[in-house]
Every structure is written in structure tokens, then in C-alpha cells.
């Protein structure tokens, strides 16, 4: 399991910009080599859809695609999973769901057949 501790990596309690997500590209790439990638948001108190989207883009670029079976976990996110973060996932054909412990699980969205 590869883990990236976001606060330790970036030193910021509010993760806002795409540039900040890009700044940990190397750490994300190295951690992505394991079967499970955990982004630990302990110490982070605010995060935007822009940051999350860029983090997903960096990981996707590194893996080609979120691997199957996907195991990307956002541990200790600063807020409950809301529709804005779910929308970030939808835009990338990913499902983001909230686990009982409050963490977010990112997985490939099931392919939908046309009607």
C-alpha cells in the first residue's frame, strides 16, 4: 500500500490549486506503484474540486488509467463527500463513494450501455 500524506508533502492546510496537486506528482507516481494508493488528508482542513481533479489526473497519467480492481482511497478528508466531489469523479468516469469511516473510495465507474 502506497501512502501520500498530503499535509506533510505540501505543508498546507487548504489544498486549493491544480498547481499544488501537480507539485506532488513524483510522490503520487511512486506511491501508485503499489496495489493500493492512499491519499491521507490528516491535517488538511479544506480541499477544492480543482485540487482533487488534478490529483486524479496526475494519478491517471501515471497509471494510464485507474487500475482494476481500483483501490484509491482518500483517508481523513476534511469534509463529507458532497456532490461537487462526486461530480469530479463523474467527469473522469470514476465513482467516488464514502465509506463508513468517512474515507472516500475511488473506483472506475461501471460502463453504461446506451438505451
Amino acid at each position: 500500500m502506497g501512502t501520500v500524506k498530503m499535509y506533510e508533502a505540501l505543508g498546507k492546510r487548504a489544498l486549493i490549486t491544480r498547481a499544488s496537486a501537480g507539485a506532488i506528482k513524483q510522490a503520487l507516481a511512486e506511491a501508485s506503484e503499489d496495489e493500493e494508493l492512499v491519499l491521507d488528508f490528516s491535517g488538511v482542513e479544506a480541499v477544492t474540486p480543482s485540487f482533487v481533479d488534478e490529483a486524479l489526473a496526475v494519478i491517471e497519467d501515471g497509471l494510464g488509467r485507474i487500475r482494476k480492481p481500483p483501490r484509491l482511497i482518500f483517508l481523513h478528508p476534511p469534509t463529507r463527500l458532497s456532490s461537487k466531489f462526486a461530480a469530479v469523479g463523474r467527469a473522469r468516469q470514476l465513482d467516488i463513494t464514502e465509506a463508513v469511516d468517512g474515507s472516500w473510495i475511488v473506483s472506475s465507474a461501471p460502463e453504461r450501455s446506451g438505451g
Partner: protein
Amino acid sequence: MNIRVPKQFWHAGALSAKFASRDPRMPSSMPDRVVVDMRECSFVRPAAVLWCAVYPLLALTQGARCELLVPEDMGVAVYLKSTELFRVLQDAGVTVDDRGVQGKADPQLILPMARFRSEEEVENLANLAVESLRRAGLGSANLHPLVSEVFAELALNVVQHSESPIGGFGFIQFYGTQQGRRFVCAVADGGIGIRRSLERNPDLREQVPYDWVAIQLALRERISGTGSATRGIGLYGVAEDMRRAGRQLIIHSGIGMVETTEELESRATRTKGLFPGTLAYASIPT
């Protein structure tokens, strides 16, 4: 030109109709001198405070000499000084005679008015807000992330889409009144407005005949002037966050205003007063 603001100044939409056509983004529209007369103002809301920053600074870019006349009501004057409005204007070259007005450190002012031009500056401001919220200990702590995120998203929108020649402005305030306690995030720019921003996207150009239509469209998922499939989440996300009991989002862009509350449908109106750019006001009860 002398713009006399109302005694109860809530937002630019409340200004006299005779100023409605005076767009400070248009060179031909500006006289040599612009005076914002607040002397009789006895009550001012955050949305109006930001108009007081944006309008004179845009007029300055057109070569006008600008002055803001300070409220005679000392309480209002002190409040405006505390928000840093006077300093922002003075730094830019607007005349503000605030002699005798003592600013005071207001613990309810989570983030005083700040000017920003880059995403990095927005991130720094959001981190300042996080620290300030923690230090002040006001309101429910589980809302602090939301307050910072809403401010940041609105400010990022300014940097990414507004093309504002004067940058963006914003502040965060906590209100504790008999009517209740709430956080307010207010952000504004002097840019092209939401309608023109969406018109940058060829697929949307025919869908935005009016400012209020453009604002409503911009609040939908994955709608942006860029046309990118992964963009257009920010404003949608803020609107979704505001669809909770007691929360409110007001966006004023050009002559359109849209108010979003917990109800599914937002309310769109045409305003008599123009906002020369875009203003967003989010209110979060705690």
C-alpha cells in the same frame, strides 16, 4: 459623476437606475471624475462593500479621478475601515478622506478584504482563512472547511474566467445577530462577466442571451467557457453546497442576479443596477 448610494446599501442592484448604463469597463461611459458618495449611508452589506471597491478601480483604469466620500455614521465608517476597503482604494489611487476613523481589529472579520490575481494568491488566502477560523473559534467548527472551500472556489473562478483588469477582491465575515449566526463569503471582480465568459464556448454561445440566463447555466454541472469535460465543477459545487436549509448563494453579473437557496430552482432576476463584472455572495448559517 456623483453616485449617491442608498442609506441601506445592500448591493449594486439597489443603485439608482440613472447609473445603470454607466459601465466603468467601457471607456466611452466614464466621465473625468467619479465620486461614490456614501455620506448618508447608515447600513452596508458585504456585496455593497465589494461594489465600492470594484466600481472606482475600474473607473481608474479608464483614466477617471475617483473619490469615495466616507459615511458620516461613525459605526459604518469604522466597519468599512476594518474591512480594509479604504486601504484597498487608497493603495490604488482613489481619494478616501478617512481622517478620524479608527479601524479596529474585528474578530468577526475572518478574512479582511484582499486583492488577488493568481491561483497561488487564492490558495494563500484560503490558508489564511483556515488559520483565522481556527483562531477565532467562531461558529460550528465542522463548517470551517466549507467556508474556506467556498471562498476559494469563488476566488479561483475569478482568476480562471473573469479576465478582470483589476483582479479580484474578497473577504469572509462572521455575523452574530439576534436573527442568527452565519458566515458570509463575498468575492467580486471587474471582468467580462459570466455571459461573455460562457460565450467563449461555441457550444454555449446561442444559449446565453441574457446575464441571468448565463448565471443559471453556469451553476450547472460541467458548464464552463473552456468547453473542457473536466472543468465547470467549481461554481456548480458551490451552488450544490448552498442547497441546504438556511444557506444562500447570490450571484450578480452584469444586469442579472440569481439567488440559490435550498429549493431546487434558483430565482433569476434582472437588476436595475449593473455589476461591472461578477459578484458572488454565499451565506452559511451556523
